[in-house]
């Protein structure tokens, strides 16, 4: 599609460089992606997506899980060589086919899982790949590593000590190390001249997901500083609340398509939410008749959490859960909500007690909680939910194998399959084939299998952590109905969701978690999405 000549010119662009550019002086995009298409095994992950970034701006890219933000940035980072569409970088058309090529061109991605070398010092990390060595002795020039790193740190005005080992740094400072390393080439190639050159773009992939609020402020300071220097940046995020603080423009993706691009100054959070989710989600909820609510009074206390604490993650969480109740836990990503339920389920250690029907569960572990009658549908289906490579039947029955096994632990395959078939019918798993590998099912059906696992175990308390992440609206609707039905049957439900509308529509009672603390308890019917959002963010930040 592209001639070699063109490609070569494109690749050499970084060598030639372009004159210093000032954000006020030049509004032309550094990067333009047009009609990007990327398919995975027949499904379109990206469908004609347009995206551009100008120098001296932070362009936020938002969307639900599976909307295609990461795929789009992976195209930019050279992780795929089989995409379609045009990429214009620094005024030249390019085709990016390898991560190395992307990096050499000046495209740097700072991933959520930082890729720093923990065993190296700050200076060694920044200068990695650019070390000088003696001609004959091959001796490594450590002095030049330190001097070079010092210069870059000074230039960027980062608060870093070049000699400190990176593993001792906080996550935020490790992030600074990675930024400095990514920008090193650009700074060094233009000594004494203006910086940055146009051929540089920095992508942040959910950088704040693993940072505390203090670190986030620090990082934002750095990003703003880089923006004022004229650097073009892309900012991927889940957290809508951050956008007014950090972004200049926002592009929303949904189901692999561009929904729209807005300047941050003329859009509302609720509008962005609607753009992210689509208009149809509110209609996916089963109507709650007032009568049903009256007849469905929660029963006895089944679970009592008292003083649950994990230093630095969450503090002193106490609440009660009743039979037939849906308890929503709301909070921003990283507020500690998932960690709290993981601790209740015994997946993480924590101080404090959890009582089940008045008796404390001592030495909580997932296997013990499972035996007592607590189940959890974990947040990360692929990593924590599915037993990949095994059939649906085994995935459905893994938690009740003890009950299904006969003398001497004998597992009758027929018994197992029969049980699985019953669950598949009940859960309407499609296609209804117990022998199918779970990873060949769609996301929604995988989720049904995981939920079915706990129904099979007849758990009395079921924790749903982001149960509708990455599944289609139809299945979402089924999931909502299922959660309500489970509560009607008298089971107690804990529901965590980033989609606040789910919590407001489904939960009887809502706990708001902010920075690891239980800040408020609200009744479900009293609140709406925007009010709950304000609570999650904290009032001072929402303005």
């Amino acid at each position: 599609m592209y001639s070699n000549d063109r490609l070569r010119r494109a690749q050499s662009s970084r060598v030639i460089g372009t004159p210093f550019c000032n954000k006020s002086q030049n509004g032309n995009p550094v990067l333009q992606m047009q009609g990007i298409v990327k398919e995975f095994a027949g499904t379109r992950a990206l469908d004609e997506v347009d995206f551009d970034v100008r120098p001296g701006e932070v362009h936020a890219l938002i969307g639900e899980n599976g909307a295609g933000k990461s795929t789009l940035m992976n195209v930019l980072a050279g992780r795929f060589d089989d995409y379609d569409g045009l990429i214009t970088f620094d005024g030249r058309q390019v085709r990016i086919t390898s991560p190395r090529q992307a990096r050499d061109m000046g495209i740097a991605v700072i991933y959520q899982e930082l890729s720093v070398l923990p065993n190296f010092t700050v200076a060694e990390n920044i200068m990695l790949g650019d070390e000088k060595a003696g001609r004959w002795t091959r001796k490594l020039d450590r002095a030049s590593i330190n001097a070079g790193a010092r210069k870059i740190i000074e230039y960027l005005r980062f608060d870093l000590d070049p000699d400190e080992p990176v593993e001792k740094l906080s996550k935020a400072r490790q992030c600074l190390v990675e930024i400095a390393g990514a920008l090193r080439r650009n700074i060094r190639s233009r000594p004494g001249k203006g910086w940055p050159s146009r051929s540089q773009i920095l992508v942040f992939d959910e950088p704040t997901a693993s940072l505390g609020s203090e670190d986030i402020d620090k990082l934002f300071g750095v990003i703003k500083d880089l923006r004022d220097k004229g650097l073009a940046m892309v900012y991927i995020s889940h957290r809508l609340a951050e956008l007014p603080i950090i972004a200049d423009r926002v592009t929303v993706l949904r189901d692999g398509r561009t929904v729209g691009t807005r300047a941050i100054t003329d859009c509302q959070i609720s509008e962005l939410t609607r753009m992210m989710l689509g208009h149809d989600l509110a209609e996916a909820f089963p109507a709650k008749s007032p009568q049903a609510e009256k007849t469905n009074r929660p029963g006895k206390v089944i679970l009592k959490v008292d003083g649950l604490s994990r230093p630095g993650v969450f503090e002193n969480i106490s609440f009660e859960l009743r039979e037939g109740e849906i308890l929503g836990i709301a909070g921003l990503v990283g507020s500690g909500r998932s960690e709290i339920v993981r601790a209740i389920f015994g997946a993480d250690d924590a101080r404090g007690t959890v009582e089940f029907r008045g008796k404390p569960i001592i030495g909580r572990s997932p296997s013990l909680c499972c035996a007592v009658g607590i189940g959890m549908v974990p947040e990360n289906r692929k990593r924590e939910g599915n037993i990949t490579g095994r059939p649906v039947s085994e995935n459905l029955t893994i938690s009740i194998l003890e009950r299904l096994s006969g003398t001497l632990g004998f597992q009758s395959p027929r018994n197992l399959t029969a049980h699985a078939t019953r669950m598949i019918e009940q859960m309407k798993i499609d296609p209804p084939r117990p022998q199918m590998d779970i990873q060949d099912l769609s996301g929604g059906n995988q989720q049904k299998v995981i939920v079915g696992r706990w129904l099979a175990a007849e758990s009395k308390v079921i924790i749903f952590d982001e149960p509708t992440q990455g599944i289609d609206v139809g299945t979402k609707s089924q999931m909502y109905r299922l959660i309500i039905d489970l509560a009607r049957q008298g089971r107690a439900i804990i529901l965590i969701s980033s989609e606040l509308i789910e919590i407001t529509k489904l939960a009887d009672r809502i706990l708001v978690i902010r920075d690891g603390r239980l800040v408020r308890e609200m009744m479900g019917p009293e609140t709406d999405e925007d009010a709950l959002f304000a609570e999650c963010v904290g009032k001072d930040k929402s303005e």
Partner: protein
Amino acid sequence: MSNDTKKPYAQRIRDALSFRKLQQASILLLLVGLCAFASYRSPTFFTWTNLVDNLLTNAAALGVIAIGMTFVMIAGGFDLSVASTTVVCSVVLVLTMDALSPYGAAVAIPAALLLTALVGIVLGAANGVLIAYVGVNPFVVTLSTMLVFRGLALILTGGGQAKQVADIPLRNQFNWVYDAQLPLFGQSCQVSMPIVIFLVTFCLGIYLLRFTRFGHYIFAIGGNEEAAWLAGVNTHRIKAATYVLCGFTCAVAAAIFVAMTATAQAESHVGKELVVIASVIVGGTPLGGGSGGLTSTLIGLLLLRVIDNLLTQFSVGAEYRKVVTGMIIVIVVTIDVLAKKRSRK
């Protein structure tokens, strides 16, 4: 946060004496303590004959291999085939010396040594290419090559017969590699040739690992291979080079072994790879790589050898020596895991 200079003095001391460093120091302390205990209980332990002639000379050949292994393991790799590689090298050395003996020692010995070194390098490269370029798991690759190389040695010796360096003049001219004594510390305190070979390799190794870009990148790969690759480091080539280096050290060790016994036997050195790996791990190089070093490997090797020597002196059977050695490895690695858990909190 403040810079290092602004930190209170106590904090700086605490940083310097991190748990990890304490753990390294504790192994050294254990070694010193054991030696003190041994020389107190056994009059023959702290003698030049026992320590240098016996203990160190015997440990030298394995020590040379351990140097190569340290390079491989710091880069996050693993090599189970070292014992087999050494055996192939020994057999090749003996066979070529025999075949070339008509040309006289001046030709036969250097030529044979050269060929042996080449064989070591080629076998190491075979591992390296499969692991670094093809991307097969190092455990699987070296487990297979361990068997393949052992079989190769059996084939070369015609089904496992011991091959002697038959030509007597040649034999006498080669065993200096083992027998030569250098009066480095006066006539009564001579140092044997294997120790000298080890020390030379050790110094070269230190230079390579600590002072060159190659060594720097080995640590980088052990720390985070993907990040190193993205930063422009040719990780494939460097990983492969560590295995080549390891193969070369096996060839050096083979020369020492052949000089010691004047024979090569395809069935010898079974299980030695585990001793080598054990000394690297006990020294403090973790299985995932990224940290460690040659000095720690040396300490680890000495610790294992001293314990072995001590137990021999107290005439403890070989079966108990194995139990003790195994337990030492587990204890040291357990301490390491606990230390990491603690430092993460």
